[in-house]
């Protein structure tokens, strides 16, 4: 890309690597962040971090080697470890790393106005506290952080890509007697977060959930908030769309391509090019240009997600779904902005149990989809208004089967990490009372 600033040691690394392997790729991230953390209503901790990480991948006669370090001065050791690691890998079909293409140089998830200044972090915390003051809850903890990073990808085919990312992250925890509330917000753009609202909602949920009533065991019309829905999707459904899981026998969806697996109103896709969304990027973690992937269209399963390695092995095409985990992370199949969409409507037209959050979704069975979780900040809701809180109960079901019986999607969506989701309505959801 035109704003590639030659990083001498990366050029040297690529040259050096080519002496011993067919292909080489280097991924380098450098970033800084600041944060202000609350203990009750006072800032107790201010942090700044300087992070860096290098991930090297080598491919030689179909054997893929890798290593990482967060000490870029030691790139020679890291390169030697990557080359050595390739010797142990089972060889596989491989048709090469991507070639460079001309991509727009404008970043999709970088805010030049975002500055990593501790005073700004403290100010964001104060705005959250002001919002929380609208309700009589006690604040227990909270945090505001700001980060910027630059990402560099280079390979022996001539790819020299650079991108910049920024982020602002807010969270607040509140308690009212024995009732807790939590809210958060995240964006790449400092103007897109609403600290006052984060504070107000955290305190609201704590207060509004106090003195809940028990609910008898039974099947109920339920609305899952985007947050509760995200917990179930990310622990069960999304991993089942991963091409590697599909082909290696770890996905219940493996044999269902072309079949209806969800209510016809459901659309699920990854849109990596959505402006201002935090997961947006023009190239994936190994340099493949990104594009929209439709996983489910009108309830029908259409695609799985692939990176180069899995695509070459199973004779598929990469979907540009390689993502890197953290600093110096190696590529793995993931998503950029995972979106659930479909016809929106009024899902609050009858009395429903509204579930804001769940506890323990990571214990769901990722193979079968079975889950039973504790619900939290749950309320009876009528015409969209919060009524009586539900004290404590469990919710059980199957994440896959649940998608066949989605009764409606809310008008609004919300960003939860890299997911953009509506609230969903389920007509008959099992709730186990206490």
């Amino acid at each position: 890309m035109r704003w590639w600033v030659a990083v001498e040691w990366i050029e040297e690394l690529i040259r050096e690597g080519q002496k011993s392997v067919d292909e080489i790729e280097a991924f380098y991230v450098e970033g800084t962040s600041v944060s202000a953390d609350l203990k009750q209503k006072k800032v107790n901790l201010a942090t700044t971090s300087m992070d860096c990480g290098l991930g090297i991948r080598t491919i030689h006669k179909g054997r893929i080697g890798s290593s990482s370090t967060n000490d870029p001065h030691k790139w020679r050791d890291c390169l030697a470890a990557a080359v050595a690691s390739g010797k142990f890998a089972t060889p596989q079909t491989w048709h090469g790393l991507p070639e460079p293409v001309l991509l727009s140089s404008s970043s999709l998830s970088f805010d030049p106005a975002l500055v990593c200044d501790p005073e700004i972090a403290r100010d964001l915390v104060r705005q959250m506290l002001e919002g929380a003051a609208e309700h009589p809850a006690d604040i227990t903890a909270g945090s505001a952080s700001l980060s910027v990073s630059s990402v560099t990808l280079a390979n022996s085919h001539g790819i020299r890509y650079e991108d910049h990312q920024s982020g602002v992250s807010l969270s607040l925890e509140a308690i009212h007697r024995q009732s807790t509330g939590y809210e958060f917000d995240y964006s790449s753009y400092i103007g897109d977060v609403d600290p006052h609202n984060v504070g107000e909602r955290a305190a609201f949920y704590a207060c509004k959930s106090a003195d809940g009533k028990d609910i008898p065991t039974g099947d109920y019309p339920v609305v899952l908030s985007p947050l509760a829905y995200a917990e179930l999707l990310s622990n069960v459904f999304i991993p089942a769309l991963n091409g590697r899981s599909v082909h290696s026998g770890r996905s219940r969806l493996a044999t269902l391509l072309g079949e209806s697996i969800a209510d016809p109103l459901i659309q699920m896709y990854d849109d990596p090019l959505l402006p201002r969304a935090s997961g947006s990027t023009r190239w994936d973690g190994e340099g493949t240009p990104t594009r929209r992937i439709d996983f489910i269209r009108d309830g029908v399963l259409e695609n799985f997600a692939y990176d180069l390695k899995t695509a070459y092995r199973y004779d598929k095409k990469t979907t540009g779904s390689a993502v890197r985990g953290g600093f110096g992370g190696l590529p793995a199949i993931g998503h950029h902005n995972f979106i659930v969409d479909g016809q929106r409507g009024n899902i609050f037209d009858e009395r429903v149990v509204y579930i804001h959050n769940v506890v323990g979704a990571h214990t769901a069975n990722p193979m079968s989809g079975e889950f039973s979780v504790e619900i939290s900040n749950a309320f009876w809701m009528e015409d969209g208004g919060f009524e009586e809180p539900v004290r404590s109960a469990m919710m059980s079901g199957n994440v896959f089967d649940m998608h066949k019986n989605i009764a409606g999607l809310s008008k609004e969506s919300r960003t939860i990490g890299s997911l953009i989701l509506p609230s969903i309505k389920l007509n008959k959801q099992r709730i186990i009372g206490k």
Partner: protein
Amino acid sequence: MSGVKYYDLRHVTGQVTHIDIDNGVVESAGTSFFNKAVLRVLNGTGWGVIQIDNFTPCTGKKFDDLIESAQKLAGITEEVVELGDVLHGILPVPPMKEDPRSVSIEEKSSLLAEIEEAARHPLVTNRRANYVERTEQVRFMDSSANEYSYEICRSGFNVLAVASRNGNVQMGYEREHTIHGFDLRHQQESGKKAAEIAVALLDAGAVKGGKMRAVLDPELAGVFAHEAVGHASEGDLIHEGSSVLKGKTGEKIGNEILTIVDDPTLSEFGFDPVDAEGTAVKRTEIIRRGIVNAFLHDRESLAAVGNGIAGHARAMPGEPPLVRMSNTFIENGDATEAEIFAECKNGIFLKGSRGGQVDPGRGIFQFNAEYGYLVENGECTKMIRDVSLSGEILVTLHKITLCGNDRKMSAGYCGKGGQSVPVSDGAPHVLLLDAVVGGSGVD
């Protein structure tokens, strides 16, 4: 460095070796390196913390400049942090029977392949085995001239078997992780067991949710101790006001047969030779005979809250320490396994764990078993799958009515504040009355 009340620096370097075998294919195998440090400074108010990747130890002006940057950062804090007085000191790291670093990656890879191969079965559609070996060299120093350094190596493996029949997909999962050295030899049994469980679960039924008697195996009862009691006793949560155990010191919150301990000195997976702020580690009886006895503390929460023992600060490399558990367990009682099943009579027996979660402020926890059996007339009968339990901390501990005499520890990792640290949990078999069971079965 004028105005500095306290500082400490924790620098961790190390390497991670991993092997990933998926259906007979070595997906990846190799070594990565890390170098991370965290500097914490107390000025007149709260903490100023600098996290540095790729840290080069320094002295003189360069170090003073770092302290000054942290001081400046601390300028935005408002709370006045006090540190409790603690004992310092370090325990020797238990010796390893066989240092994994002396074993070649080829040999590790072929031993792991044997474990993965042992999970072969006509109904098993996927076998996956992972090996991980992590060595950390830790160096700690503080402004009171305390200095410690140690090296620890943790290694182990996981093996997963996925069985599938007519769209029904189930899994079996076995793992062993240890601080005692290389443990990949003679472990094929784990692969075989993962496969057997996955296949058996194809015929298991879903349990109908509701209240019932439950026998928990040592692994699951350990997770219960961790989720239901351990987190809620963490001093930082008590300090913030987000634990139902706040102000409960000396109160009886559980059956008198119940003693729950966190002990970082034990030679188990959560062993800590010295905590992350240089405090000597010590066995802490959180619950003694049903009574809230001592909270887990770091120096800050010890000063702010009291009623407990410091030495429980832990951190991932380069991260600021948090109050954490280490080796958490329910002490042995005097019941035999047979007595526990006889007393249960009709209910469920739950084994293994897929983890759990707690909201300590609300006092509600959830945890999940890998599988279980119906108990009918004191005997295990039909296999059941996907069973979760939930409960209220201040109610459930009264409902543990029998503790066995066969405590066993299981290794794992615990997440808090975005940091994951090695822990172990354990217990004997226990009987839990009125367990709230979530399952997707219906009449």
